[in-house]
């Protein structure tokens, strides 16, 4: 089975460990192009571990181990240079983490600069374009030389999104991007996610069932390292096939 034509990422029999502890058990799912897939589940169920496998960050931990298959556009990411994989699969972290000593401009431009782009005009264009896509341009266009850390938490998170967009990835992973933010900033990021799916494939980890309902097209429900249920968000939310999923969605567990 080569996977459907619109499958951006196909995961097969994925297992992941920290030392002797198995954090992911035999995960199988496909992420469709230009959709938002939400990874849902209680704390410690392996959501972060899962998306960190996708861009090969997981294996950087000294005691980490990984088995199985992850295909990006039909090609195994384990046969690719990890740097190449991460250029195609960007990531936004739970806590906003702009580079502390860099200006707003440099935070966005750094990915390109360090990969050899020198042309000032091209950099200017990418910085503006990325900040616009991250819905931050209007707020920062007059202070691009200020430190990135001088922004508010919500603005910093949008800066991190702009930073991820600037290197022109095909997939963007979000690990609970709004959990450290106030509700208004969170709504802004949610709107942004929906805008992004026109150009990117989005995977978002969240604790927040309502958030998953608002933004996602597909939802994967994880429980203690296993994928319990995966499907269209509307279908899973209205008609969960598994007892566990229903219990989680109705707040009886979690």
């Amino acid at each position, binding site marked *: 089975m080569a996977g459907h034509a619109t499958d951006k990422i196909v995961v097969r029999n994925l297992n992941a460990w920290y030392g002797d502890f198995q954090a992911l058990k035999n995960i199988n799912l496909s992420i469709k192009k230009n959709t938002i897939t939400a990874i849902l589940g209680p704390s410690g169920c392996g959501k972060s571990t899962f998306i960190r496998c996708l*861009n090969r*960050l997981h294996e*950087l931990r*000294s005691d980490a181990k990984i088995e199985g298959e992850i295909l990006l556009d039909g090609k195994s990411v384990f046969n690719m240079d990890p*740097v*190449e*994989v*991460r*250029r*195609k699969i*960007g*990531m936004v*972290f739970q*806590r906003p*983490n702009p*580079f*502390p*000593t*860099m200006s707003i401009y440099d935070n966005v431009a*750094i*990915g390109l600069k*360090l*990969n050899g782009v020198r042309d000032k005009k091209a950099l200017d264009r990418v910085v503006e374009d990325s900040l616009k896509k991250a819905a931050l341009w209007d707020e920062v266009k007059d202070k691009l030389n200020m430190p990135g850390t001088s922004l508010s938490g919500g603005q910093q998170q949008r800066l*991190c999104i702009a*930073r*991820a967009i600037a*290197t022109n*990835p095909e997939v963007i992973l979000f690990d609970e991007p709004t959990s450290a933010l106030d509700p208004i900033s969170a709504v802004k990021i949610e709107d942004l996610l929906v805008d992004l799916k026109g150009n990117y494939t989005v995977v978002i980890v969240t604790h927040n069932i309502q958030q998953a309902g608002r933004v996602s097209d597909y939802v994967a429900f994880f429980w203690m390292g296993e994928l319990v249920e995966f499907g269209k968000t509307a279908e899973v939310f209205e008609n969960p096939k598994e007892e566990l999923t229903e219990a989680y969605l109705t707040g009886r567990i979690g």
Partner: protein
Amino acid sequence: MAARRLKDNALTIYSILSLVVIAIPLLHIIATTLINGAQSLTPEFFTSLPKPPGEEGGGVANAIQGTAILVALTMLISVPAALLTAIYLSEFPESRLRDLIRLLNDTFMGTPSIVAGVFAYTLLVTKFGFSALAGAFALSVLAVPMMVKTMEEALKLVPTDIREAGLSLGIRHWRVVTSIVLRTAMPAIASGVLLTVARISGETAPLLFTAFGNPNFATGILEPVSALPLMIYVYAISPYPDWHRKAWGASLVLMIAVLTINLITKYKLRRR
């Protein structure tokens, strides 16, 4: 209640007393150096070479030049060496040699400074003679382990998140280290370097049989050079009152330099 209050008061008095016991000798040293040294600090003191023994006047320009050369050379040798080692220890956790290097570094850090001098003497001086370079090498034996320690701490303070954010942009590991991690740790690294400068600029023992001393200006790094602590040592044990005054003066210069470095480190580099 009363017993409790008595105990509190006793503790307060005890703290104040200990503070005084520590502060008085410290202030005494500073005051004595100031009083005895200030009178020597004439323009001539900074710009002239010393006069022959017993003659009044002259200055310590050669020692100031020597200390500047020694410190600069030492940093030139030890900053790159320490930085590479610290990066290796902190940023390549899978490396096997790590524990061995740590052990070596800790051993070197406990080395008495006179041993660093002997080491440089047998390695360099016996073959090439006394020189600024041999002095700087001896000082580096002391400086490198100190800096490896502070630099490694500085790098470790950079959050893992920052490294992962760099990697997740598809930037190569070594570039993440050199352009992002180092940049983030730079204020702490710089303060470690400055504090090491402050520490080694007053070292005497390692210079006794390496840099050796020189009554004139040095014209190259392969010649013997003077240094402020060496000069203080020689002048202080001499029989001439004028030299005693000069030794105080040189002590004051050294103390002010070290104090300035410490203040810069504290107020300029710690803030971020």
